[in-house]
């Protein structure tokens, strides 16, 4: 975690998060919705978890990402069993 900006300092303009296990630098204050748009991910049949908690689709526009957040973006894939 980066230290919070002290009084008078400019706020962070970018934060490092992890998306599906890969590091990514994004704009400070980006929402889940913004991230999905940035990554050009289809919304249909897609789900997102931030720090292990599932983000509801209705909250995509309000949940913002902070330094060190772990984002998982999943979708159905081919598979039968384990």
């Amino acid at each position, binding site marked *: 975690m980066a230290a919070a900006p002290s009084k008078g300092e400019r706020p962070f303009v970018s934060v490092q998060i992890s998306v599906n296990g890969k590091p990514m630098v994004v704009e400070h204050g980006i929402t889940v919705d913004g991230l999905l748009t940035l990554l050009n991910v289809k919304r249909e049949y897609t789900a997102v978890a931030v720090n292990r908690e599932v983000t509801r689709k209705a909250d995509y526009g309000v949940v913002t990402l902070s330094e060190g957040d772990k984002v998982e973006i999943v*979708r159905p894939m081919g598979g039968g069993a*384990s």
Partner: protein
Amino acid sequence: MYDTNLVLGGKEFTSRLIVGTGKYASMDVMREAHEAAGAEIITVAVRRVSLPSGESILDYLDTKRYTLLPNTAGCYTADEAIRTCYLAREAGLGELVKLEVIGDQRTLFPDVEGLLEATKTLAREGFTVMPYTNDDPVMARKLQDAGAACVMPLGAPIGSGLGIRNPYNIKIILESVTVPVIVDAGVGTASDAAIAMELGCDGVLMNTAIAGAQDAVAMARAMKLAVEAGRLAYKAGRIGKKLYATASSPLEGLPDWTS
């Protein structure tokens, strides 16, 4: 012959063969195999999207025609499996879930403690839980009591193709629970599926046996026929087994060939 439908989570299905979406040579072969299997329920895994945004299996599945059954394949704890189900629900895949909590990488046998815990939680959260379990009648009853919509005992290890290794336990499971019993895993060829159905199982779930066959589409059709034949034979009521012969023709009226 009149038959009832398979009921899961209040939804009725005429097909008793559930198929997977893994290991197919191509998406076209998969689509044709699903068609040939006459399946109504198709299971899918839930995985990270490939970035930059890649294609989805759902680009190749008619989601209006099939009921999708997200599975928790690859989950080794109740917590992982539960979170995967939440993700599946949020992704819009519904509340029917094939619950797997794997206990061992080599055999892919279920961790039944984790499975029971996850079944309890998910059933409470409104999911229609279809747990992949071992062929243990006691565990089957515990899963039913925990709120499982059906129980899915393995016939043999996942992907092994060894068939129904313990038909007697499957039979006892059928007597132990009132929820549907669906054999999940182990089927290798058509006769294995027929045996499961002849025992009285309510359905069979398979992936590798079809996807891995040299001609997946032909095998899918063979499985469809086997599941139907086995079901019909079960409903018809087979004859008892006897050690010695019983003549089918009357003994009266035989011509006399003695000189």
